[in-house]
């Protein structure tokens, strides 16, 4: 069944991914561009590392609405973490601290979420129900995230098919973790409570590249509203991956789309290899039913060891537990991901759940070099009554942590005989991933009793629809037809000035689409290079300047000059803009230039045309159409030549 072996990343083909049954879906998070947070009136988008005060909290699992405990919640409770929140008065009020009930939802944010739902062709819900989604890792001081579904369904075109959307929700952002060592986790609270939307797709992407491409489309779609935040951390994604026979595993907090292909490849490989390992174990007769493991306190047996991590632990009065996994010899070095082995799965669990965060936190009998002395391994094996088929794993810590660690080792090893545990995993820079927590289920949802349901009226939907931009794929087609150059189309389609573009190229202005597109996309970049605050540009400026152009009051070159003037002075003084020259003026100026040049002897007479043009254009920049001047100069030079001079 699992006879396929993963090839290096670059050699995998779509057929290979089909062979392993690669399936992936996305959960795309996007911060919204609002002034204030979602459920309180604190400013949004203000980040700072300094803080005025600290608060300590612990999290405790609670029952879901349907009367069930969530697995993640129980796992986090096992970790017994002290959670510290660092608070700055400017960015956090008593709401984020969970000492004041929520205020009414931010209507501006809700409007944006509905607008994006419309762009996805989704069904906007009639009534918003705010839910509490439990997060016991402490990333939100309440222990839950306030979140609500704004739309259900929807789809985006991709290749020759559609990628379907499950749902979209509006929710408050979480804290930023600054450290997590032992039983203490520290968070910064500035980002907490900022509005974001989460778009969830069906797992319809068939290769790692497809995942990245679909993510790109979704990102461009939300940006096309001009109402979302951009920059580091403003858009983040969770990627769900599974293979045939595997389980949905969620890779959390992927910071960049570029990293998705390698991450999803490694996760698919991990699942596939764990399934191969299960098959191999089963062939040896090790199944969930026959699985056997036990552990003993072996502190006394190795109390004189020179292996530093354990020697230090024993000196600190810690305990060393030794777990025996029957029949597991060799499996701890079973490859899971690129340069990563099954022992890492176990070490991760011990790190997260038993809070033994200093690595190495385990050693095992499949890799004995540079650990205990051979004699120590021998006495351990004797004490634990080990055969050649069995594996040993050592874990050390205070009584409670060493106990929790040994138990988790056994739990994770037994899971290997069952299949792929449902987990959320964190993305590492090298493209591999590590255990973060047990994947939460629908059990963690609970209605928010602090806020009543909120109807979304048809009038409101209508108003939002009227101002929503066209979908980017429709825009892209349209712009192609208008002849906009390829390198501008994508940027123009997500530009906040796309609506200005469409207005200016249509009746009654009918301005050249290539010119307008260039001005909208390229001019701001040039102005930024001049150090000007281009975020101050609005539709008004573009439209005003282009109307001046279209009515003939200014020429092409003056468009950039006018925008520059606006950013420098805060206004456009039309009287100071270069006005177009009359034909008469140009004629005179060309005549003058010709005279000037004929009074001097040129070193390089073949450059005469360029020199004349230079003189004229320096003087009339922004006031004449260069092509026209060029024609005039050429004809004059030609007539001179034909006159024999």
């Amino acid at each position, binding site marked *: 069944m699992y006879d396929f072996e993963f090839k290096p990343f670059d050699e995998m083909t779509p057929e290979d991914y089909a062979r392993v049954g690669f399936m992936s879906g996305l959960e795309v998070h996007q911060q919204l561009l609002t002034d204030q947070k979602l459920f309180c009136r604190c400013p949004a988008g203000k980040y700072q590392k300094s803080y*005025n*005060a*600290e*608060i*300590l*909290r*612990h*999290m*405790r699992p*609670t*029952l*879901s*609405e*349907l*009367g069930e*405990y969530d697995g993640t*919640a129980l796992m986090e409770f096992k970790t017994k973490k002290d959670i510290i929140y660092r608070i700055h*008065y400017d960015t956090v009020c*008593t709401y984020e*601290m*969970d*000492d*004041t*009930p929520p205020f009414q939802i931010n209507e501006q944010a809700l409007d944006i979420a509905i607008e994006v739902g419309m762009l996805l062709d989704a*069904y906007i*819900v*009639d*009534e*918003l*129900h705010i*839910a*509490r*989604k*439990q*997060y*016991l890792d402490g990333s939100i*001081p*309440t*222990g*839950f995230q306030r*979140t*609500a*579904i704004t739309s*259900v*369904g929807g789809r985006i075109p991709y290749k020759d098919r559609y990628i379907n959307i*499950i*749902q979209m*929700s509006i929710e408050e952002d979480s804290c930023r973790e600054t450290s997590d060592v032992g039983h203490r986790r520290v968070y910064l609270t500035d980002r907490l409570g900022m509005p974001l939307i989460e778009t*969830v797709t069906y797992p319809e992407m068939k290769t790692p590249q497809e995942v990245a491409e679909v993510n790109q489309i979704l990102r461009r779609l939300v940006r096309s509203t001009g109402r979302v935040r951009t920059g580091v951390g403003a858009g983040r994604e969770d990627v769900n991956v599974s293979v045939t026979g595997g389980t949905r595993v969620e890779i959390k907090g992927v910071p960049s789309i570029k990293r998705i292909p390698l991450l999803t490849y490694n996760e698919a490989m991990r699942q596939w290899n764990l399934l191969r390992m299960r098959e191999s174990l089963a062939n040896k007769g090790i199944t969930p039913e026959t699985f056997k493991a036990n552990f003993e306190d072996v502190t006394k047996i190795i109390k004189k060891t020179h292996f530093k991590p354990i020697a230090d632990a024993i000196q600190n009065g810690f305990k060393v537990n030794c777990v025996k996994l029957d029949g597991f010899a060799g499996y701890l070095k079973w490859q899971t991901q690129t340069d990563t082995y099954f022992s890492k799965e176990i070490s991760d669990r011990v790190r997260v759940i038993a809070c033994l965060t200093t690595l190495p936190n385990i050693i095992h009998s499949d890799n004995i070099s540079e650990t205990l002395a051979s004699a120590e391994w021998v006495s351990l094996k004797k004490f634990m009554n080990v055969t050649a088929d069995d594996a040993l794993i050592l874990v050390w810590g205070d009584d409670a942590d060493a106990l929790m660690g040994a138990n988790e080792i056994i739990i994770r090893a037994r899971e290997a005989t069952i299949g792929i545990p449902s987990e959320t995993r964190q993305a590492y820079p090298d493209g591999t991933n590590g255990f973060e927590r047990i994947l939460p*289920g*629908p*059990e*963690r*949802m*609970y*209605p928010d*009793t602090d806020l*009543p*349901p909120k*109807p979304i009226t048809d009038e409101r939907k209508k108003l939002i629809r009227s101002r929503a931009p066209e979908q980017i794929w429709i825009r892209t087609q349209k712009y192609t037809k208008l002849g906009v150059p390829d390198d501008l189309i994508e940027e123009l389609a997500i530009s906040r000035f796309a609506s200005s573009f469409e207005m200016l190229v249509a009746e009654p202005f009918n301005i050249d689409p290539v010119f307008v597109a260039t001005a909208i996309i390229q001019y701001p970049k040039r102005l930024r290079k001049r150090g000007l605050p281009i975020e101050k540009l609005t539709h008004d400026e573009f439209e005003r300047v282009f109307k001046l152009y279209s009515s003939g009051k200014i020429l092409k070159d003056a468009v950039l000059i006018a925008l520059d003037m606006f950013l420098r002075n805060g206004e456009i003084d039309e009287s100071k803009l270069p006005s177009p020259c009359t034909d008469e003026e140009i004629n005179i100026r060309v005549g003058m230039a010709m005279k000037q040049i004929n009074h001097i002897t040129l070193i390089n007479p073949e450059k005469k045309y360029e020199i004349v043009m230079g003189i004229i254009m320096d003087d009339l920049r922004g006031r004449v159409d260069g092509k026209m001047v060029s024609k005039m100069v050429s004809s004059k030079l030609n007539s001179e030549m034909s006159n024999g001079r």
Partner: protein
Amino acid sequence: MEDKELFKGYSSITLDVMKKWGAFVWSDIDVETSEGSKYSGIILPRSETADKLHLVLKMATGYNIGIRADKISSIVIKGRKVANYKIPEKAFPYDKGKPRVKLFGTGGTIASRLDYRTGAVIPAFSPGELYGSVPELADYCNLETEKLYGVFSENMGPEQWIGTANAIAKEIEKGVKGIVIGHGTDTMHHTAAILSFMIQNSPVPIVMVGSQRSSDRPSSDAALNLIHAVKAAGESDIAEVMVCMFGPTSDSYGLLHRGTRVRKMHSSYRSTFRTIGDIPLAMIDRNKISPLRQDYKRRRTDNNFILAPYFEERVGMVYYYPNMMPDMIDSMIDSGYKGIVIAGTGLGHVNKPLYPALKRAKDKGVAVYMTVQTLWGYVQMYVYETGREMMDLGVVPTANMLPEVAYMKLCWALGQTSDLEKVKEIMLDPINGETTDREPSNGYLVYQGGIPEVEEFISKFRK
């Protein structure tokens, strides 16, 4: 089953739509609307206070949404999934080395579940349920529970106070080692005050506890408050009526406040309860109880306590404001009130136009007592002429008794006698710290944020 159960909370057009398609609460359905939208999920009960226009669905992802009933064009019923909301119940373990503690429930949310009818939370309570959600309780005591009432704290009244006092007395007689009373926080200090008067000289701790964040949230203060309260009841040497709630907003320690000096000071903070005009009795955490003073009543083994469950309901309280008209007082006199507690400005003042009404009260035999709305400090009616004039009109100053405490005490005193001289004796003779001879200077600490030394303190210690 009755319609009410089948269609919990639904009425009007939504009810009609459900009936038309044969859908009930808990039906697992596919819905289509006239706009072409399609949804799938389980129909949830609807809160009675929500509008009548929407059907609530729980979708597979766990999220809820509302669908306009008048847009529903078809419903297909696929099955039924009834929520079975039950806190896992585990038998509370018995350990003969641990003290017997009795937990009385009056309401509040120590452990709770969702009430679909109102959308609010309702408490769960049995020892098994409590052990299931707060297993640490078994480290401190053998817990017994009894639900006396299930009311929000604003609905506590004379009947509940007297009933609670009687229930406590019965348990003390049975030799309990400590009492815990679960209570909503809004009026916890009122109940703490009246119980201080109704149960005097208790041989065991009587600890009131509640939560500022309901226990259906992971960050709730309920579990830790309950652990602290149970420890205080079973182990502490302080045999008084106390309130046990968070000290700081952090999950670190609780404070034990004397029942006659405590007040809820913030509408939502966890650290809302403060001892006013004095310092608390003790700090408490999972491991230790650290008394902050020594003048508390000690635990005893005898049963010589006093049960005095008296209460006069015709007593009112007036929060004085400038421009108050005498008819405010007159209307109480005319309605047959027997006692009035005034929360006066500053040292205990009201304006002159009230004087005739105060005189009428005196003539009609209405007991009038003065407290201060500043909360901290004493009524000082000798300092200004206004005060002296008022005392001539029969207004009795109550030293540094908190307004709510003075109110509860006057109800209690008038419940025993209508002889105003005797009432005055009772009012001015402190039973357990409701008035004190002196106010320590650290009894008034309302620090002002922003000031450098305060900020330094805040940055050093967890709030």
